[in-house]
């Protein structure tokens, strides 16, 4: 596939915001000592990131003004379900922020935030995992990775915010979990990579055309200058570049942030937390770009030869 930046940014940003909200909700439910101002500011940041993600996703639409129609097919479409869950999640987070500011006592809000954050991960991941013939996506690890990567980035963000704001209790509680989940996310991402490296495509040029000759090749795709089918489904990057992106995201998204988290726990200084965040953001954007690029759509079998 040709990765769309709108989708890359939307899923990465929303995932991090979900992870941050889950961290804050769990901290609140565990009654960790946290200043209310800090909690409200962190929630405001999460809402801001979610709104930015929502705006980014609208750039994927040819007709964004009609986006409201996407709520109608929730019975069958994971995309429709996502379109419903995302604004509800934003609404819950915004209400929680407002409740903190106004001093309302609404203890169910962190629970609702947890539920909708999980639901949003499920919807977002299933959009990809439910397409059975994109074999790189149609696997349970897609759901695991979207969730763990979101949690990892949300926790790293929470640590950086807690370190900046001097929220020691939250920092000391969140940092070990951030470390564990960042390592776990790296491990499951590597598991998905190694599974995909061993994939055998179910479709072939023979099954695509029904011409059962072992020596079959396309002479012409029926056009000379490309079409939607050649623009949307081919990334046209070299295998070498893909390898570099893969190495970069494993390093920046998982390995270095994990080392920096250890560093932060050991040194008690501010910079490792901020550096972990600064490295992980581009790392995870590269990860999501690679996730989309790696998908090998069976329609590509029909578009092999320009003539």
């Amino acid at each position, binding site marked *: 596939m040709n990765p769309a930046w709108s989708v890359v940014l939307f899923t990465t940003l929303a995932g991090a915001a979900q992870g941050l909200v889950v961290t804050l909700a769990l901290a609140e439910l565990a009654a960790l000592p946290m200043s209310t101002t800090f909690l409200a500011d962190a929630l405001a940041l999460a809402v801001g990131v979610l709104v930015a993600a929502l705006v980014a996703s609208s750039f994927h639409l040819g007709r964004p003004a009609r986006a409201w129609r996407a709520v109608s097919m929730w019975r069958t479409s994971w995309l429709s379900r996502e379109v419903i869950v995302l604004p509800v999640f934003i609404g819950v987070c915004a209400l929680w922020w407002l409740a903190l500011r106004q001093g309302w006592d609404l203890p169910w809000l962190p629970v609702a935030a947890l539920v909708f954050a999980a639901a949003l991960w499920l919807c977002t991941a299933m959009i990809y995992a439910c397409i059975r013939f994109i074999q790189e996506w*149609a696997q349970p690890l897609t759901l695991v990775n979207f969730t763990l990567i979101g949690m990892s980035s949300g926790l790293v963000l929470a640590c950086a915010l807690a370190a900046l704001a001097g929220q020691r209790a939250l920092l000391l509680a969140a940092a070990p979990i951030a470390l564990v989940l960042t390592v776990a996310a790296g491990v499951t991402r590597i598991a998905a990579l190694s599974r995909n490296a061993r994939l055998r495509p179910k479709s072939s040029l023979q099954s695509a055309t029904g011409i059962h000759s072992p020596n079959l090749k396309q002479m012409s795709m029926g056009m000379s200058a490309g079409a939607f089918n050649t623009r949307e489904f081919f990334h046209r990057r070299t295998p070498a570049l893909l390898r570099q992106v893969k190495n970069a995201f494993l390093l920046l998204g998982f390995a270095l942030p994990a080392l920096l988290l250890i560093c932060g726990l050991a040194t008690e200084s501010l910079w490792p937390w901020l550096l972990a965040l600064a490295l992980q953001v581009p790392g995870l954007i590269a990860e999501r770009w690679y996730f989309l690029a790696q998908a090998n759509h069976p329609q590509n079998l029909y578009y092999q030869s320009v003539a």
Partner: protein
Amino acid sequence: MIAWLRKLLQGEEPPQPDTLAKQLALVIDLNVCVGCHACVTSCKQWNTSGSAGPLADVDAYGASPTGTFFNRVQTYEAGHYPDTQTVHFPKSCLHCEDPPCVPVCPTGASYKRKSDGIVLVDYDKCIGCKYCAWACPYGARELDEARQVMTKCTLCVDRIYSDTLPPEERKPACVMACPTGARLFGDVKDPDSEVSMAIRERGGYALMPEWHTRPANQYLPRQVTPAAEDGA
């Protein structure tokens, strides 16, 4: 929960919906297609002229002309010399009986008609999210660059039910245009139709059967005619 997720993610075959009583489809005879692209141009001509608006042509007179087409003719070479074949292969929406593009549509713009099985896009409801194109293994859908909505073969739904065209012209434009009769059109659920008989007698087959989409359009394979004996 685990079982539900597993079922969602891989286990089960897609649900088999009730088989429709009528399913219009094309049957493509690869034995006689000569790759002239008359079906491509007639399709474009008819469908760019209708009430749904023109099919985009971007850079039509430039170096890289690209545009929306509902039908393409591709060419393949098969076999080893001297037993080689050139196969011209027309390709359009297959109007699957279990179309994976339909349930993923978030707005309901993509739908399959119960009355005749045609898979259509309601251009007024489409938001151009391209998810249906991702969910079609055949690459049958093309986003129109000008209108920014998803487009695809309609089986010339505005021809086949037309009150104004003479009855003999109430067929898809590609079928009308084919000079060799390589394109048959009809109801594949009617066992006595031309298309059903052709599928039965000529070994009609579906594309990518491994994904269980049950394409309504089928292809008739090449038949190798043995060379005549010398002096025969």
